[in-house]
């Protein structure tokens, strides 16, 4: 092989996962493995009140007895939980008071990832909370948000400064014993964001959290809690990346959303965790429990997710439509390439009258990957006039990938109205040749066709991130055509 080809291939490999670098920074870690001492360690590090420590311990003891969920169409070896670290924090990154105190190496890391934390350089109107391994290293625009009465801070800080709010809502939408992964998170969660928007307030800017796993063999267990009080509105976006490593790393997050009367929460995710190499070595296990509760009348929760990374994705952002006339939405693009596996979808639980839900799922599979949509629409006996519309489209690229659609419908009310549409298609030779004849190279053509296929979902992303997401879609499919 000539040096030229070597260089070219190296550059190509790097380009495939641009976020795959590592930051060389000293860290404080808990001892490896998991036991009650570790939980004590984490709780002490965070200077938590007794009630929270007790809650963690209760979760841990339950976790020991819980079986792994095994119903997803995923294939991987059992996880050795004792091989992981459950707490890692940059040494200098603990509790900085302002951006000026943040380690320059960390600022540099986020800049490389395209997330400059220095406020003057930021996208106009977006506040960012940056979580590095187990701790939040910076939150921007805090003062401006405080003027509007909005609380946006790391959850560990909220535990200190707003204990009543945290205690009132934590674990109310995702109980600690919900499933094994959520239970583990409840026991060992380290950081994540907390948002509270008071009654009648429209949050003046997009909120966003950027999660970064840096340390080797470290799990990330963030917990996010967002509350929109009566008539409030908030739009929140999370992004995720990790360095390329040969070992699988565990990411077990929990997100809880609560929307009161007439409130609206828009939650968007651009997930680009390291997917592993083309032979399936390394990559993040993304086991995430996300659920929103439309508590009040006319409440509205909308999930939008662009899932392109992770070796394994196990994730079902859901809505409990308790308030009458409340609305739940789920817009999803899940792209798998190489050896990636994704089992993702949503649950819409209709409890209140005249509740409405809408599911648009676009699954794209390439390489030797496997993509499954799994969704539940459940109409409870009192949900008169409930409506659901579901559309699941799958697109296959090449001959060696798989796409599956597994919709569950449980309807206990004869007055409900449910619609389900599903398609499976392939990027056709005709489409590729047509694009190439006009001068568009094959890989760019695939990106164009796939972005067209995802358009219905993409347009639900906040404007500031739509362009980035389109690029990410194209990048994650590189190498998918010969």
């Amino acid at each position, binding site marked *: 092989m000539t040096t030229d080809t070597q260089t070219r291939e190296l550059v190509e490999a790097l380009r495939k996962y641009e976020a795959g670098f590592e930051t060389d920074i000293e860290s404080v870690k808990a001892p490896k493995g998991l036991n009650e001492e570790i939980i004590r360690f984490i709780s002490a590090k965070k200077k938590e009140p007794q009630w929270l420590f007790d809650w963690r311990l209760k979760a841990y003891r339950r976790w020991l007895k819980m079986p792994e969920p095994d119903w997803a169409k995923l294939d991987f070896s059992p996880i050795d939980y004792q091989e992981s670290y459950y707490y890692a924090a940059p040494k200098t990154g603990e509790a900085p008071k302002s951006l000026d105190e943040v380690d320059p190496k960390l600022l540099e890391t986020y800049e490389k990832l395209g997330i400059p934390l220095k406020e003057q350089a930021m996208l106009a109107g977006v506040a960012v909370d940056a979580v590095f391994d187990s701790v939040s290293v910076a939150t921007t625009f805090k003062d401006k948000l405080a003027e509007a009465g909005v609380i946006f801070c790391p959850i560990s800080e909220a535990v200190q400064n707003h204990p009543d709010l945290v205690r009132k809502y934590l674990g109310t939408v995702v109980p600690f014993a919900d499933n094994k992964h959520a239970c583990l998170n409840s026991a060992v969660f380290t950081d994540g964001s907390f948002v509270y928007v008071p009654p009648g307030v429209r949050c003046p800017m997009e909120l966003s959290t950027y999660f970064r796993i840096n340390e080797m063999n470290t799990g990330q267990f963030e917990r996010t809690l967002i509350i929109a009080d009566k008539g409030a509105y908030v739009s929140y976006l999370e992004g995720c990346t990790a360095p390329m490593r040969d070992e699988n790393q565990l990411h077990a997050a929990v997100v809880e959303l609560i929307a009161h009367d007439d409130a609206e929460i828009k939650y968007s995710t651009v997930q680009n965790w390291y997917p592993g190499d083309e032979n399936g070595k390394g990559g993040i296990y993304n086991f995430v429990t996300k659920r929103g509760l439309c508590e009040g009348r006319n409440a509205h929760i909308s999930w939008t997710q662009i899932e392109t990374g992770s070796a394994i994705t196990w994730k079902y952002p859901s809505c409990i439509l308790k308030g009458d006339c409340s609305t739940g939405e789920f817009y999803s693009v899940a792209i798998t390439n190489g050896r990636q596996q994704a089992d993702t979808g949503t649950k819409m639980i209709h409890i209140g009258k005249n509740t409405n839900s809408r599911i648009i799922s676009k699954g794209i599979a390439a390489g030797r990957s496997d993509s499954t949509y799994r969704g539940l629409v459940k109409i409870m006996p009192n949900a008169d006039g409930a409506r659901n519309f579901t559309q699941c489209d799958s697109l296959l690229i090449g001959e060696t990938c798989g796409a599956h659609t597994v919709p569950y419908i449980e309807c206990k009310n004869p007055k409900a109205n449910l619609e389900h549409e599903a398609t499976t298609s392939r990027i*056709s030779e005709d*489409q590729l*040749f047509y694009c*190439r*004849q006009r*001068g568009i190279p094959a890989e*760019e053509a695939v990106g*164009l066709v796939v*972005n*067209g296929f995802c358009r219905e979902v993409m347009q639900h992303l906040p404007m500031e991130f739509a362009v980035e997401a389109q690029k990410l879609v194209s990048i994650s499919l590189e190498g998918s055509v010969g």
Partner: protein
Amino acid sequence: MLEIRNLHVRAGDKDILKGLSFHLKPGEVHAIMGPNGAGKSTLSHVLAGREGYEITDGEVVFDGKDLLEMEPEERAALGLFLAFQYPVEIPGVQTSTFLKTAINAQRKFRGEGEIEALDFLKTLKKTLKSLNIPEDMIKRPVNVGFSGGEKKRIEILQMAMLQPRFGILDETDSGLDIDAMRIVADGINALRTPERSFLVITHYQRLLDYIVPDQVHVLADGRIVESGGPELAKKLEADGYAAYERAQ
């Protein structure tokens, strides 16, 4: 401009082109006519670089370069345009976005910068007007829900915007009523220059009333069996292809 020498092409286990040769000079318009199954569409696909064909013999030289060695997108960037007989739908991709992506991809290949957004819009508006295409049509996804005539007009729009040096029109007249055909033909005639050449592939003579070719070739059973001036097309219209088919 384009020199085809002794071209033999196979698809699957079937020989389709069996020694096809002709020479197209800059500024010339040649028509290829012939019965169904003679290999007309195969010729257009092979020239544009579609996969699935095996070149068993012969060569094609485009501007001094070996055309058959190039990827389809390279041929496009060097100025080869194929107006498809059946234009392809691309759901979710706006026609204007598609056009701009194509223009910029070709410019990038040639080492030029991206087109100015304003220049693009100006040229697009002018071209739409000349082809009698309503502006809202290019906001719709590529070819999705378009009628046959609309699709063909969009092909000519793309050709006009991409300004190729060599255009191949593959049965562009099929499915067009007489008014649509006149618009399409006017569009093509407006693009005729001393440097730009066209290959018009058609089953019927009527398109050639509007686009008058310099030469007409009759393609039958994988070979050019007769060549002549525009009068040859008239003769075919009167006599049909029966004479050539009997000869096989």
